[in-house]
């Protein structure tokens, strides 16, 4: 009887613990979603973080409006960045586009802007070039700030329309492609994951193969294993410092994608080596013996029998690594920087989603934005998890029936 009572008691504790874990989980995910979901929309995902300014050179021409005013009013692109309603757009013939005035607000500033809401099919804006004569993209939703040196700050919509209408010939228009999105961070994150895995996976996996299959077990291997274990607890900022001293300064790679991914690759190595070693060790000896007894060489045995069997374990390592790269902030801050842009080359800086979230939380105190980025990170982690699961199931001959 007393056993029943104590069993029940323990069971209750187990349920309690699981309940705690689950509620913590729901709480955190809930917190992130509630705070951040309001900011998530297509613009958020598809735009750059910073506004990008350009001077467009345009040949003015008379383009008649081909639709009526009501249709024009309907062409106001919905955008929840605009907290106050847009004014009715006015059409300006010589640039073949309609402009509306909006009040732009974010969590620290509020300003008036003039936004292009409609562009005629043969508008000269569509042929805009920059000062080099390279084609420039101008689209609806772009902000227009000045024309031929006439700045629109403090003007009303009517004044702006007449200012533009008064210009003719060659026009120099300052346009701003609105930012506020995290496209560049998403892409930088994917680059970073890809690059650091490309560097760390072969090194880690082949290294682990050497350590388990070739190296004579002994002190040396144990020391390496111990060092790897210890490094797992070292804060990544220290890796960042090393990356900065070695890759950024000594090798002169600058603050860049490559410095960042090399540094993260080093962070990943201990994880990959340890998990791969474990995975290799769990491959039953009888498979190795079976293969060798059939006259296979050691290498054939490793590649044809041992590695395929170890796939699920290695996949776990890959999963952990992806999580680690995506979640890394301190080390990347010092080696890849905080520039919210798509890195043009391996040697350009770029900030991952997490670095961006860290940055906006720390510098701007913008918790909502950090959480919105958090949601994107969680989605990316889920997608990458599922992808690598699928990949590993495809490769996993061991459990295939």
């Amino acid at each position: 009887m007393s056993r029943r009572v104590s069993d029940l008691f323990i069971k209750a504790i187990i349920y309690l613990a699981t309940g705690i874990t689950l509620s913590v989980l729901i709480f955190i995910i809930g917190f992130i979603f509630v705070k951040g979901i309001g900011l998530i929309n297509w613009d958020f995902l598809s735009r750059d973080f910073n506004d990008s300014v350009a001077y467009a050179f345009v040949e003015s021409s008379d383009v008649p409006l081909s639709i009526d005013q009501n249709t024009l009013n309907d062409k106001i692109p919905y955008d929840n960045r605009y907290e106050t309603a847009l004014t009715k757009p006015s059409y300006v013939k010589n640039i073949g586009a309609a402009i509306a005035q909006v009040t732009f607000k974010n969590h620290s500033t509020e300003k008036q802007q003039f936004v292009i809401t409609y562009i005629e099919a043969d508008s000269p804006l569509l042929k805009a070039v920059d000062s080099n004569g390279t084609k420039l993209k101008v689209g609806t939703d772009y902000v227009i700030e000045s024309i031929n040196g006439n700045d629109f700050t403090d003007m009303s919509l009517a004044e702006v329309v007449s200012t533009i209408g008064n210009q003719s010939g060659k026009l120099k228009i300052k346009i701003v492609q609105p930012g506020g999105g995290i496209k560049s961070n998403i892409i930088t994150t994917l680059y970073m994951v890809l690059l650091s895995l490309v560097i760390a996976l072969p090194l880690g996996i082949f290294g682990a193969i050497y350590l388990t299959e070739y190296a004579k077990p002994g002190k040396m291997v144990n020391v390496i294993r111990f060092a790897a274990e210890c490094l797992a607890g070292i804060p990544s900022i220290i890796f960042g410092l090393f990356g900065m001293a070695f890759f950024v300064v000594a090798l002169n790679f600058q603050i860049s994608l490559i410095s960042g991914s090399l540094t993260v690759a080093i962070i990943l190595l201990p994880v990959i080596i340890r998990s791969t070693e474990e995975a290799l060790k769990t491959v039953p000896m009888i498979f190795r013996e079976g293969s060798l007894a059939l006259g296979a060489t050691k290498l054939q045995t490793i590649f044809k029998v041992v590695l395929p069997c170890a796939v699920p374990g290695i996949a776990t390592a890959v999963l952990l690594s992806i999580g680690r790269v995506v979640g890394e902030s301190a080390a990347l801050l010092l080696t890849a920087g905080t520039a919210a842009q798509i890195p043009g080359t391996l040697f350009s800086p770029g900030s991952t989603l997490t670095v961006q979230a860290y940055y906006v939380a720390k510098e701007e105190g913008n918790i909502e934005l950090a959480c919105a980025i958090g949601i994107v990170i969680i989605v990316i982690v889920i997608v990458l998890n599922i992808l690598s699961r699928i990949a590993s199931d495809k490769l996993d001959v061991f459990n295939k029936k």
Partner: protein
Amino acid sequence: MDKKIKFNTKNLDLFYGDFQALKSINMEICEKEVTAFIGPSGCGKSTFLRCLNRMNDLIDSVKIKGEILFDGNDINGDIDVISLRTRVGMVFQKPNPFPMSIYENIAYGPKCQGMKDKTVLDTLVKESLVKAALWDEVKDRLNKSALGLSGGQQQRLCIARTIAMNPEVILMDEPTSALDPIATAKIEDLMSSLKQDYTIIIVTHSMQQAGRISDKTAFFLMGEVIEFNETPVIFTNPNDKRTEDYITGRFG
């Protein structure tokens, strides 16, 4: 003895670290015969068997003294261990098919040797399965995983896999201990027919089995070969008291 001697060991000692598992083994094993090793658990049967294709290389602590001549050449000498193992195949106590398709299991060895021709491989796979008396049971599921086979089928698959290498010698370490009588019968039949072409060495716990299928029997005890002789002699008229004690135990 008119048959050719395939294996000849001379004063073979084997140590696992400090522990001596084999003590001065001298044995001549003839071609195209079945030789059985019997003896209580831990007496060194498997260890000796694994010496013959240098499987013990995989265990770091093993040290070997003495000579093992295979067709007159010392296998611990200059010989290439890979080609030794292609000539001396091995079937293990626990069936250990690879986690691949049945076809791939059989083709594994030949492919490792560099054989690529699909038609040659197909024929080889079929022939080996036929010889191992497994063809009929699996011919419709060659591309299914070998892990889906029953224990007895898996063991025959492992034998087929070995036959596909066309070795000269097949070592078998208690190949039927995990099997039921019907599967055991099939494998014993198989051994009898294989002995036309191959030299077979088998470790077994079953006195009956040794009696049924082997030409010669060696009795191991504590790392020594106590007696090695024609099977009928061992079972009816052993020289050594210890052999007799073991044989006449009521068990099988």
